């Protein structure tokens, strides 16, 4: 492929991914509200459009047209950049994720991955990790004590759970022997029984728990715990800047869903009669639903419980899992 073709293809992929996932993130908020409502015997948004479907649009319009308030004592450039970091890192992380199996459109074979780097998993994790700068900088720049507390919680929570994420993912990587997500996917071509989740159930659970913390979801959403610190790092934000945090958060959730599906749940391989492309969408949807589900079911934890859970429960389990995996592999 020539350079130009490559550039154009990549550009198109970028645009498509950006567009789809922005929309998905918006749609995610609608889904969340609906699912939560149903689980709480409510109806959720109903008034805008049929079944409230246009609520997303309404919210979007509201956010875009709202006044962009920048507090006087804040560090303005950083205050303004922080939400962008949040959204950008979420999308950059998506760049190394193979979203679908290869398919052909108009006679052109499309690899639905923007950049296939051979350290894919690490790249995704790394970029998602650097996403912590969004709430961190936002909280520190916004000259608000709740913001600062939210930033401090960001630092400890995301930093700690990164360790668990990395360690939990290490064991499957040892099985596969590659850091490329495509290789990991191909490892599980054998079908349902070949999914890594059966070989590494502990790692899967750990990865999910850590994922909750990394994406800042209930029961670990301490960064913006309404009952304690108003809205945490986002206290001073409004309008589109506030919205960007949420686009980032939902994009991260989807990325995580893709990661979990690819690494543990068989990826985009055909699943029985279901074609691979649909299979992965189903899996990601389930994981996304699972995020909402737990939010409806489970309460928050306290920050000290969170740290305790990370360092004294999850991390040792993860290390033991890695060691056991190592021994098993050696034998």
């Amino acid at each position, binding site marked *: 492929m020539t350079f130009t073709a490559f550039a154009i293809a990549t550009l198109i992929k970028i645009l498509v991914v950006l567009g789809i996932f922005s929309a998905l993130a918006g749609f995610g908020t609608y889904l969340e509200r609906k699912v939560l409502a*149903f689980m709480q*015997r409510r109806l959720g948004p*109903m008034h805008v459009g049929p079944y409230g479907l246009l609520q997303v649009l309404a919210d979007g319009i509201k956010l875009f047209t709202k006044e962009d308030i920048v507090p006087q004592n804040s560090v303005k450039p950083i205050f303004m950049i922080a939400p962008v970091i949040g959204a950008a890192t979420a999308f950059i992380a998506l760049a190394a994720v193979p979203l679908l199996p290869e398919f052909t459109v108009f006679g052109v074979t499309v690899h639905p991955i923007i950049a296939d780097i051979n350290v894919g998993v690490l790249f995704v994790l790394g970029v998602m990790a650097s996403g912590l700068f969004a709430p961190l900088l936002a909280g520190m720049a916004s000259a608000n004590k709740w913001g600062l507390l939210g930033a401090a919680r960001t630092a400890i929570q995301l930093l700690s759970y990164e360790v668990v994420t990395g360690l939990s993912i290490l064991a499957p990587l040892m099985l596969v022997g590659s850091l490329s997500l495509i290789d990991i996917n191909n490892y599980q071509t054998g079908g349902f029984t070949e999914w890594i989740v059966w070989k590494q159930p502990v790692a899967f659970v750990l990865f999910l728990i850590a994922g909750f913390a990394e994406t800042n979801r209930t029961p670990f959403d301490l960064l913006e715990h309404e009952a304690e610190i108003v809205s945490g790092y986002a206290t001073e934000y409004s309008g589109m800047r506030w919205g960007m945090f949420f686009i980032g958060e939902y994009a991260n959730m989807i990325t995580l869903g893709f990661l979990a599906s690819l690494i543990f749940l068989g990826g985009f391989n055909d699943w029985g009669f279901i074609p691979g492309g649909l299979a992965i969408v189903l899996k990601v949807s389930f994981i996304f639903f699972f995020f909402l*589900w737990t939010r*409806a*079911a489970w309460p928050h934890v306290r920050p000290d419980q969170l740290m*305790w*859970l990370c360092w004294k*429960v999850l991390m040792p389990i993860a290390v033991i899992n890695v060691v056991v995996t190592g021994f098993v592999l050696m034998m």
Partner: protein
Amino acid sequence: MSLEQFKDRNVMQNYTYIPVDKPPVKPMDKFKQVMKRTFKGELFVGLWVVFREMVKFDIHTVKYPLEKLPVSPRYRAVHKLYRLLESGYERCIGCGLCEKICIANCIRMDTRYDENQRKEVTEYTINLGRCIFCGYCAEVCPELAIVHGQRYENASEQRAHYVLKDDMLTPLDFLKEGKQQEYPGFGATSPNADERIKKTPLAY
């Protein structure tokens, strides 16, 4: 939901008492608790409950502006000022008890003697912005002239709207149509009041 259901205040049989243990202090105990709670499936119980509710789709939403829940007769919403059924005069005799008893200081009245040497109420305002809807005024009124109504939607664009006496006073045509119901609610005598009265020595 019928009114009878609403009146039944005996809810004790639905209460569930949850035994509360002392929280664990030692790390090992904490760990045991986490393990217990994890593997006992309590977490999954929560998940199952919400999932069941979602699947059952037993929606309890009241589409409020479109449908409203019935209000208890003893509900204390915006006041009503009643008129005498026969003459159409206001029931208020200007005794000033409500003004005295109001703990939010929201009732204000001016009175004077009219030409018949009867007391006449010239000004009567209730500042709903300040009112806490405690019901003392209705309770203390000897004439059942001021009572609490059922109107709880009192949003407005101006504060001035919160003190309009005309909104509370039963309109005359309304009275004529016989729509002023005798008040059984808060501040009114209970239906079995006669039985509950203890006879005083004077009665003999």
